[in-house]
């Protein structure tokens, strides 16, 4: 538990006591993690319980007659539509974010000082709680007939994620040595070639990080979807919420849809952890 980074000299002769301590350390950590993730694990277990077992009191921890029916039923009662709509809205808005954001990020990274007025103004858009503009968007969408359309929600999610995408990408591009561009310029490449053939391949990991984050935020967003769409577009969080509020919740199906909704994200999270730490270090190191 020391704050000091454990330095491990090559253990030539680890004593029995040291091994025991090491094992104990990991046992403590696994126990702590199980405790911490308890609410989510409970949801996971519930997803495999048949309806009859859902309302037992006191509840049984493991499903007695495990079933996969919740997943198939959950898909047909709204989970499938939710996943489909969320995929459409999240992926298209992310694509637009990257197309709009990458050139802007490059311009910011190379031609403006870091944390200057412009970068700050762009980033500060992200600090605004969504509840503040949502009423304005609602009135605007009624006027432009964008209410309850995919186009409308895609525009909103692009607006929501673009500032973050620009900021992340410009921080990333700043880390690329300028010598690549200078070499290309000396070879006589015009600026757009330099951009497409030199910078884009070099910043692929940054584009991936920004893209995944933007996907996750759009995938998880609820308030805009709640207010700006009706019966036509039903994203996953909205499907889950309506499911929950208008009927006696069938926790098994809810759990199944919920687990299906977060599963892909959890697989990504291992990769995300490294790049997240890296982008925080970049940001903080530059202050």
């Amino acid at each position, binding site marked *: *538990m*020391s*704050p000091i*980074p454990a330095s491990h000299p090559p253990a030539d002769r680890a004593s029995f006591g040291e091994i025991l301590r*090491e094992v104990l350390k*990991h046992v403590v*950590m696994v126990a702590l*993690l199980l405790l*911490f993730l308890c609410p*989510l694990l*409970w*949801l996971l277990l519930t997803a495999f319980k048949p309806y009859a077992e859902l*309302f037992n*009191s*006191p*509840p049984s921890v493991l499903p007695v007659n495990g079933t996969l029916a919740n997943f198939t039923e959950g898909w047909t009662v709204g989970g499938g539509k939710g996943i489909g709509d969320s995929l459409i809205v999240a992926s298209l808005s992310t694509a637009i974010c990257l197309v*709009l954001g990458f*050139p*802007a990020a490059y*311009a910011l990274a190379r*031609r*403006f*000082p870091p944390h*200057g007025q412009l970068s700050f103004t762009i980033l500060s858009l992200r*600090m605004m*709680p969504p*509840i*503040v*503009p*949502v*009423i*304005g*968007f*609602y*009135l605007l969408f009624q006027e432009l007939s964008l209410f309850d359309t995919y186009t409308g929600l895609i525009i909103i999610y*692009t*607006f929501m994620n673009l500032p973050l995408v620009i900021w992340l990408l410009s921080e990333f591009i*700043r880390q690329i040595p300028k010598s690549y561009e200078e070499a290309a310029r000396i070879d006589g490449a015009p600026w757009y070639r330099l951009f497409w053939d030199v910078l884009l391949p070099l910043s692929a990991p940054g584009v991936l990080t920004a893209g995944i984050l933007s996907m996750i935020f759009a*995938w*998880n967003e609820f*308030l805009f979807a709640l207010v700006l769409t009706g019966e036509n577009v039903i994203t996953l*969080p909205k499907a*889950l*919420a309506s499911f929950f509020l208008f009927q006696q919740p069938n*926790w098994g199906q*809810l759990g199944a849809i*919920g687990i299906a909704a*977060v599963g892909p994200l*959890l697989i*990504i999270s291992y990769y*995300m*952890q490294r790049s997240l*730490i890296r982008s*925080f*270090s970049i*940001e*903080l*190191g*530059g*202050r």
Partner: protein
Amino acid sequence: MSTSAATPNAVRSSRSASQKRQQAQEKRATLILLAPALLFLFLLSIWPVAYLLYASFTSYQLAIPIPTEWVGLGNFESIVTNPRFWSSLSITLVFALIAVPLQILVGLGLALLLNGYSRGREIYTSLFLIPMMLAPIVVGFSWNLFLNPIYGPLNSVLRGVGISPPAWASSPEWALPTLVLVDIWQWTPFVMIVLLAGLRSIPPRVFEAAKVDGSNRMQTFIHIVLPMLVPYMTVAFVLRFIDSFKVFDIIYILTRGGPGTSTQNLAYYTYDLGFGRFEFGAAGALSIIQLILLTFGTMAILALVKRRDKAPASAAPAATPRLAEGSAA
């Protein structure tokens, strides 16, 4: 560049001319690169605010076919004189001022703990990060199930060890602490990862030097580690504080602002005014008020942070070279 020009003067002038041309070209390129994104962001932030302003100065009510009238500052007056506004403002602030410091404290503990693991640290860290990747809606109903009074597991366990469990989200005293608990569960991982990045950034030779000078673990922690983490804690605090004004989803799922109005923060109050009662004028005014509060709040916080950063004992030695490089571009 022309090589036929023999005199040095001619070379110089043609060089500067081509440089000027190149500069103009670069400027145009910058504009072309920035314009689409900036135009998009500008339009989408100005347009809704225009509608908000329009709504907030009129008696606009959706679904009621009375003619819309100009009411001046009437909506703002009715918001500011309404005790519900002040109670939702104080609930928002209380929520932030309880949840965020606890997140920093628990996050610091977790970061220190994880930093002590050389083997398995990455996998443990990514497992701790799970809650913050989840949709808040999913977090909300996981906890709703987890805390269910009849078939939820936590109450059974509490009863098992002889504690009579509270009514959690449905009791007026426990509803807000329940939401705080859920927010801490979801967002402590964020603080943890920021502080972990801070811990990893401390060079090992700092600890070696401290050890040579005879400082023990506690002293090293208080006099070296903690001060070096302060900038990271500040960033985590500011980001979490601003984000806690956005809390809406878990309230929607767990309490719907109730019981009564005991968990109605500014976000939920605005939603309720606009889409519960369709009083768009009042809701618009409330949105504008929040916009103003937040703008000044954020500016004040950032000014404070900046002043601290200017202190000579800043823990960011990398700042100077990078700023210099940036402004030379």
